[in-house]
């Protein structure tokens, strides 16, 4: 009963939580040492050297530089340990493992909307399986928000106009709070919810009982046809726009000679601001879809493009030059060599 009424330490329910807590305890140890040291010295000196008669003055102290060097060097070394340890944990937080379950988050005042790749939509609640790497790709429809799950020790701001990500591997089935941690207006403190971590089998059962509207990729495919994308981005490579088969996750040569990785941010930008980066060999003729598609639909289109990643790019007519050489000539082409590092399986809609 006592811990429920007066908790002093949060749930620890992800692989990252263990690493963060270890570092936290190290910091507590160092801090406690210095607080006790300074407090003891102040109290001891305050008593030992208290003024005993009027007109008394402090006695001269002759100390070499040893002491000053010591109390500069020791904190410096300790802080460098903290820096490297902290940077190491942070680097892991910012580097999602290659195989993840990708869930998409669209935040708006004052709610979080989640969509699973299998198609399930949720608001204010997120179901994830335990023991699996889950990556959240997040964007906002209005102001800056922030998704924070204390039990997982993860947090990231959610910005309008770009994607940020969080990943975690939940270790313990259970229900955990999440909060919006970036002030976003009147109902900021109501922008909360819970992550439901389930045993993998339960999660599968939950998915099966879903809405049945199809996977995100299939919704994206439908949009791809309805919006007419398919008339230019033809699968046979003969269209006015680049062929999207096998595009995702590979470098793309641009008309200005640079190269860009075909990731979520690139696909998003190409839909909403097509003129920003033109694939080499193509004309900037694509119209913008800003205001035509919602943030959720953009994410569905991305899932669709992603689902094409494992498809073989169509054979290129001339293949003298295998790898891309950015900046070499203005005649660079889309990459021709098959160089996918990881191939995402095509996600199948639940039965």
């Amino acid at each position, binding site marked *: 009963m006592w811990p429920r009424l007066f908790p002093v330490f949060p749930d620890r329910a992800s692989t990252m939580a263990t690493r963060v807590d270890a570092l936290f305890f190290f910091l507590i140890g160092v*801090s406690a040492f210095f607080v006790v040291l300074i407090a003891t010295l102040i109290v001891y000196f305050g008593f030992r050297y208290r003024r005993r008669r009027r007109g008394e003055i402090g006695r001269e102290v002759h100390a070499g530089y040893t002491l000053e060097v010591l109390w500069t060097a020791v904190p410096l070394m300790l802080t460098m340990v903290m820096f490297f340890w902290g940077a190491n944990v*942070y680097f892991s937080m910012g580097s999602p493992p290659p195989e993840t379950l990708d869930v998409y988050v669209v935040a708006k005042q004052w709610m979080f909307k989640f969509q699973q790749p299998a198609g399930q939509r949720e608001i204010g609640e997120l179901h994830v399986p335990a023991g699996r790497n889950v990556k959240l790709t997040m964007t906002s429809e209005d102001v800056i928000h922030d998704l924070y799950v204390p039990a997982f020790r993860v947090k990231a701001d959610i910005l309008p106009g770009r994607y940020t990500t969080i990943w975690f591997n939940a270790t313990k089935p259970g229900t955990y709070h999440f909060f919006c941690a970036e002030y976003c207006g009147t109902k900021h403190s109501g922008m909360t919810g819970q992550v439901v971590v389930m045993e993998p089998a339960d999660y599968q059962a939950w998915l099966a009982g879903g809405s049945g509207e199809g996977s995100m990729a299939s919704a994206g495919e439908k949009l791809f046809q309805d919006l007419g994308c398919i008339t230019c981005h033809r699968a046979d490579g003969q269209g006015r726009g680049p062929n999207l088969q096998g595009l995702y996750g590979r470098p793309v040569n641009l008309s200005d000679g640079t190269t860009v990785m075909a990731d979520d941010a690139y696909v998003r930008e190409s839909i909403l601001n097509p003129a920003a980066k033109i694939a080499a060999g193509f004309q900037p003729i694509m119209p913008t879809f800003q205001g035509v598609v919602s943030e959720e639909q953009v994410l569905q289109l991305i899932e669709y493009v992603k689902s094409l990643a494992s498809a073989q790019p169509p054979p290129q007519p001339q293949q003298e030059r295998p790898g891309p050489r950015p900046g070499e000539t203005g005649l660079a082409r889309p990459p021709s060599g098959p160089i996918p590092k990881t191939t995402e399986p095509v996600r199948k809609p639940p039965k």
Partner: protein
Amino acid sequence: MDTTDALALPKTHYLNAEYGIKSWLLTTDHKRIAILYLVSITVFFAVGALFAGLIRFELLTPPGDVVSDDTYNKLFTMHGIVMIFLFLIPSIPAVFGNFLVPMMIGARDLAFPKINLLSWYVYVAGAIFTLVAIMAGGVDTGWTFYTPFSTTASNSNVLTAAIGVFIAGFSSILTGLNFIVTIHRMRAPGMTWMKMPLFLWATYATALINVLGTPVLAITLLLVAVERAFHLGIFNPAYGGDPLLFQHLFWFYSHPAVYIMILPSMGVVSELIAAFTRHRVFGYKVVAFSSLAIAVFGFLVWGHHMFVAGISMYSAMIFSVLSFLVAIPSAIKVFNWTATLYKGSIALEAPMLYALGFIGLFTIGGLTGLFVATLGVDVHVTDTYFVVAHFHYIMVGGALMGYLGAMHYWWPKITGRLYSEVWGKLAALTVFLGFNLTFFPQFVLGYLGMPRRYHAYPPEFQALNVLSTAGATILGIGYLMPMAYLLLSLKYGKPAGPNPWRATGLEWQTPSPPPTFNFDRTPIVTKPAYSYESEEVELG
């Protein structure tokens, strides 16, 4: 306190040299301007504290039941704006810096007395705009004005408040310029840089930050106003802007602003420790230069406010390592102050209690700063009550303790009268205890995961919030006590005499209150600061 019998106030001094409201509103005497600032910032401290009290009252229970969510958001916004821009930033420099810089270097006034008066009027103009924003219904953006919320979504008085802060900034710039020129050009014969009291080094470093940093805040707020009024795409991606640009610009000023608040306090503590140990501050040069180091490096760490904001992992690492480096000069200062106690002649008078309290609270504030500089831990604790507790330990536990210490130490010089020492000590202890009870539970709350700026919260956070509110009540009493006994001392306090603490320093070698032009003859300085071992002042 060493009391000397049969002291009387000097016949004429700066307070009674002239009478009438005009003699105050048109004065160019740095001491009178200090008093003008003292009165105005005390008013705003009371306003800001009232907001804080309402916030703590609301947080007594988990649901939002005392005020509406909109009102709550406006309360914490106005608490931040008023306390930071209208109280903490001007506090020590504008009151004690104004009063003491000329006296400590043996000058008759600041270099530009009229600009000094102008700076107070500019401050008042900024404050009036802020008050108008409050009266007209408040602002709900948080004191940080984050875009695109502040430029599009908020329907509160953002422009008025931003103009208020914009104008108040020019007051800091003018005061900073005045201090820099005065310290460079107007030191008495013999007062070399290395003989200066450490308070002057700290004030000088603060003035540098004010002059270099404040214009960036002004520009940033101007850009917010332009985007809000004309929908020019600067910060809002919907218009083609970049929301992170705002955060970079804002923190480029607002992180150094933390040092604007804490450096003067560090200077005060150096003075107090020296005076109440009758010792030269251990490692004088290191303490002096560490103020400058903090001022310079403080400009290079703004990104540590943005570790989860969406900046690149590698720039976060650079900002993290720089933040650790800026912690070193602060740690050195703490060790030096503690070492000064060794073999000192320690008198635990009220100002000294504030100074020692400062060291304790600043140590905790500084060490928890390491937690938030550590990338992997910051991700969890940023934007939670851990950060709220951390910066209150620095800005209240540090800056405000220094301010109260200064108030008690120089009060006899400013007013010529002694306050009740017993009440002084009691208030210092009350503030220390109340402060810790208010803010220590917030560290625990933050690690538990309670986000900041929350009007309502889940029930498991209640117990710690109740402790915090109880502490705030004690803290409030601790603040009311000095207001009472200091004001009473104006009428009933015994005359202090020129040097009630038997301290070194030019300001103690002239009557209390000082004459309008501070010194009858320009003093000639032969010894470095805190030369107690060869003190010519009669040590009673």
